[in-house]
């Protein structure tokens, strides 16, 4: 299996050179295989989220190198990094991060707006995604009126609007009860079946003990607990 994302000695330092300097990721090397479900596991403050942001091209490493397939992302200017990111990654966040005043459909369309595709086609695609996740009847509802389970599905639909190869989810079940968390893992199963690569940061056993997961990587204090290949 070929590596989709390759990280070498990644470090991420916040507030560098100041008294409140924090080193969130301390030299992590790993590679993520295409088509697999990978879970980053560890207590809060272990650097999972920071590593996830680096792997998802959301932030640039302070040092180290990162590759997306053949392409090196390490010192790409933010603009090009953003381009790579929205072409390759879809994100699901802990609080779902839907924009409250907008409808479910508008929220799903948001990541695609800067790309400049005709909006009619975009709205159709958003509708199809909502349909696929069983929330088509809520398409016109405002995001702040959605239930937790509905919001989660809308958030996943939004992550898929640009047809990304990789889905990145940060603590997706932290705000859900066990039933909805189970539903989430079912959705992960369907995404995996459709060939997506999935990276999840979670300290929820329902997630990292799921049979759907191909690989669990444990993190502590900014480092991987076992040497990853």
């Amino acid at each position, binding site marked *: 299996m070929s590596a989709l994302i390759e990280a070498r000695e990644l470090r991420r330092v*916040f*507030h560098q050179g100041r008294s409140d300097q924090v080193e969130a990721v301390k030299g992590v090397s790993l590679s993520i295989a295409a088509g697999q479900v990978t879970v980053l596991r560890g207590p809060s403050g272990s650097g999972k989220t920071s590593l996830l942001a680096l792997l998802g091209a959301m932030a640039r490493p*302070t040092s180290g190198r990162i590759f997306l397939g053949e392409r090196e992302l390490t010192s790409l200017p933010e603009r090009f990094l953003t381009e790579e990111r929205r072409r390759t990654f879809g994100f699901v966040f802990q609080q779902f991060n839907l924009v409250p005043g907008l409808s479910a459909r508008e929220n799903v369309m948001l990541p695609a707006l800067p790309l400049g595709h005709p909006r009619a086609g975009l709205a159709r695609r958003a509708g199809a995604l909502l349909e696929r996740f069983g929330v088509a009847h809520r398409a016109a509802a405002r995001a702040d009126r959605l239930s937790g389970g509905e919001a989660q599905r809308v958030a996943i639909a939004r992550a898929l609007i640009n047809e990304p190869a990789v889905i990145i989810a940060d603590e997706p079940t932290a705000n859900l009860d066990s039933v909805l968390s189970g539903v989430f893992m079912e959705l992960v199963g369907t995404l995996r079946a459709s060939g997506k690569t999935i990276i999840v940061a979670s300290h929820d056993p329902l997630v990292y003990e799921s049979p759907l997961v191909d690989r669990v990587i444990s993190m502590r204090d900014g480092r991987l607990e076992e040497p990853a290949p």
Partner: protein
Amino acid sequence: MILSPAVIALVGGAVVGAALVGGAALQGAIILRGWDPKSGSERQVELERRTALVSTLVELALGFQLLALFLFVYTADALAPQFTGAMCAAGSLKADPHGYPALLLMLAAAIAAGLWLLVDGADGLGHDYPLLRAKYLMLLGLAPLVVAAAWWEVAWFRGLHPEVITSCCGSLFSRTGRGVGAELAALPPRLAGALLFGAVGGAVLAALGFRRSGKGALLLAALSAAALVASLAGMVAFVSPYVYELPTHHCPFCLLQREYHFIGYPLYATLLGGSVAGMGVGLLSLLGGAESLVTALPSRQRRLAGLAALLLGSFAALVAWAVLTSGLRG
């Protein structure tokens, strides 16, 4: 000093424009000093984000500058009755020695800002900010130009006194007078016309040639600059008399008036836009040797050359139309 609302607006606009470009240049200097593309530090990320601010500041400044140019000529025109002998902008500008330099500086600043934005746009094509150093050094040169234009503009307003006796465009741009305007007007119309069509035609051909082969960028730039100069002179010596249908009227400003269907606006807009695009092709060739631009820059240059050919071609067509439909023909 004449304190009319338009004058206050222009002075305010000049100050704002100078502040925008001055601020942009300052940001550019900060970026140049701290720039380290290999670093992933927060500082470097922040500097990269500042480049977006600089581009936006200069874009706004150019927009304001073009509008200010329009307002400036229009105001000079409206102030004319205040001066004995002035009948249009030509006379008002002459009423204080800062007038014409102010106009030329504003024009130069607008052209330079346009060229800068072309370089800025090309810089955005490469993945490693290939033109960053060149463009911010250019910006350090652009800022004083904009500030000088603002300074001269304000000096002109300060120097205006209603009792000043000046000359009208009839004498400034007449064949018998003295000075640059008169010398331009004294050019034989046929020669001026031939120069105009020759330079513009040459630039259009060079642009089409570059579009096809990707060669001759510097030739295109030189011909575009020549087309700009020859056309500005040609507007005085050749085009004006045809538009006014008066062999002795050579004013380049009256073209902007309603009586002549505002024909000056499309004429000057196509001429300026086309020659800036043409000069930009050459400038980008001089600057753009970076590896990251190998594929993207030539296609950008070809599009610019196409734009130059289109605008300069439209300019020539407009001039030809104005001459052919003139009552002065023959």
